[in-house]
């Protein structure tokens, strides 16, 4: 009898502790545990200072410039709210395109330019034939320019 | 109080024993005999719930030991081939922790008395690693002198490595335990003066 009470108390205690653990985990997702930071986070000084980190977002339309040396590129990473200019010398992945997702590793220098050492493409979970994509794009443009569905939206939402 | 029915045990691919049944009631001692490897140790471990049996039931105070494991543990003291002593602790320390853990009443005087009964008083502050083989066994056995609350003693070769004097002392103590209504199940290959009249034998033929 007594030992049953003991065991019950142990189990109840265990469940309570697990509850606290769940609360802590939820709390943790309020803060930023991230593979990369968005330009908004960089602007809000949530990204690391004086240190290499990853920045993720979309390559802004029309921002890609190739430098005369042929290897160095400049582009702007944006999450539509804020944007950060990036400088990179090296091979770009095949999926690297204007308007598409990108994750760059490097350091934010004092001049406000992000000097990237590695650039990875991040794409979305949509798969469709090119014709369909074109059609979709046209329809969307016609509907409203401002309503662009953004690849990085989900990433932005995550911390919430 | 201890009822065993149709116990079977298998090790490796061969059955060790089959259909072992016996009863031990208060004040009785069961001497499990058998050649080396006949399954005595295996039987004892099944009795105190350390190993599962292939088949059969063990009942203690009328209840299966699987359902009433705690009741069994409250009443049982098991001594294995290994002594269960920490080499780095002294004899007295070993005894103290051991008793507290087992829920035995372990005041300093009782420990002192147990040590005296086992002839280890002079070694009480010596680390177990320095003891001789027989002294170690005695240290492990000292527990028996603090274990009146334990009705059922399960002892695997308790007389191993003991000198003649210690053997007699232990045999006498076993007698006292039975007198007080205790039970014991033990194995031994030696010829020892087990309490006459109250000792039953179980031979595991292999």
């Amino acid at each position, binding site marked *: 009898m007594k030992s049953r009470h003991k065991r019950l108390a142990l189990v109840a205690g265990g469940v309570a502790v697990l509850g606290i653990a769940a609360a802590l985990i939820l709390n943790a997702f309020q803060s930023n545990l991230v593979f990369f930071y968005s330009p908004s986070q960089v602007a809000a000084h949530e990204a690391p200072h004086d240190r290499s980190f990853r920045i993720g977002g979309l390559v802004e339309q029309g921002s890609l410039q190739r430098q005369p040396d042929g290897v160095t590129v400049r582009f702007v990473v944006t999450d539509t709210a804020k944007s950060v200019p990036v400088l990179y010398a090296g091979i770009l992945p095949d999926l690297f395109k204007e308007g598409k997702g990108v994750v760059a590793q490097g350091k934010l220098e004092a001049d406000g330019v992000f000097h990237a050492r590695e650039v990875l*493409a991040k794409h979305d979970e949509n798969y*469709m034939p090119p014709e369909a994509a*074109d059609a979709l794009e046209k329809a969307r443009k016609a509907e409203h320019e401002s309503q662009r569905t953004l690849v990085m939206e989900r990433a932005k939402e995550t911390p919430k | 109080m201890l009822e065993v029915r149709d116990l079977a045990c298998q090790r490796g691919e061969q059955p060790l024993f089959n259909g072992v049944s016996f009863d031990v009631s208060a004040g009785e001692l069961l001497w499990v005999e058998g050649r080396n490897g006949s399954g005595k140790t295996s039987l004892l471990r099944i009795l105190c719930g350390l190993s599962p049996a292939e088949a059969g039931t063990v009942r203690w105070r009328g209840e299966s030991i699987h359902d009433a494991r705690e009741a069994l543990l409250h009443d049982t003291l098991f001594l294995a081939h290994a002594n269960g002593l920490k080499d780095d602790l002294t004899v007295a320390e070993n005894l103290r922790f051991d008793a507290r853990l087992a829920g035995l009443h372990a005041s300093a005087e009782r420990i002192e008395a147990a040590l005296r009964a086992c002839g280890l008083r002079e070694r009480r502050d010596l680390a177990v690693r320095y003891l001789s083989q027989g002294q170690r066994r005695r240290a492990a056995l000292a527990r028996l002198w603090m274990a009146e609350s334990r009705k059922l003693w399960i002892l695997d070769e308790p007389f191993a490595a003991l000198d003649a004097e210690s053997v007699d002392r232990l045999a006498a103590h076993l007698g006292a335990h039975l007198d007080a209504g205790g039970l014991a199940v033990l194995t031994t290959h030696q010829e020892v003066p087990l309490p006459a009249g109250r000792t039953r034998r179980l031979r595991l033929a292999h």
Partner: protein
Amino acid sequence: MALNWFKYSSPQTFYPLAGRLIPVFAVLAAVLGAVGLYIGFFVAPTDFQQGEAYRIIFIHVPAAWMSMFIYLVMAAWAALGLILNTRLSSMMATALAPTGAVMTFLALWTGSLWGKPMWGTWWAWDARMTSELILLFLYIGFMALQASIDDPRRADKAGAILALVGAVNVPIIYFSVKWWNTLHQGASISVGRSPSMASTMLLGMLVMALAYWMYSIAATLMRVRSIILERERNAQWVRDLAGAPA
């Protein structure tokens, strides 16, 4: 029905049953695989952003799904074996592990071959990939643990505990892309949302997933038959198999 269950939970009756089931699943796997590959290579269109490279999806996703699913099934069988002490459940757990490890390896391999052209890297230590790598280590640990314990009953129980402890990892793999922002993209298919994928692509992927599933079942049944023979090699019925063709 209940009676049936008990009947087939004995290795002796399960062995021939498995023998009869294997061809069924093997044929299903082959047919579905052929259909899936046909759809994948000849029906499904090129992807608008990844070009032909996306065709790895037809083997990456099934392997990744199976790697997680098999672990869960394995943990469930192991738990069943631990609680009910049924021999067959534990054998099923043991039989699932190598196939699970193979699936995990394939998910890692194809993922990394996919990542190089698309993302620009073979490997990144993001949550999805790291947790999938841990899954591989868990499978290997499970197999190594069981291999180093001689007594099969002990091996089963010890493995069961490890499998249960490791099961925490599976939801982490699955939800990692939701919880953290990873390099790996999110799910294309999830409950309550229409798939963000052209329907022929989706069809190909699902057919291939079914093929992998059938393959896994067939492979596991084959392995469990071997395990039964090993463990029961002294039972009369196994000895009676001697002359009979395998």
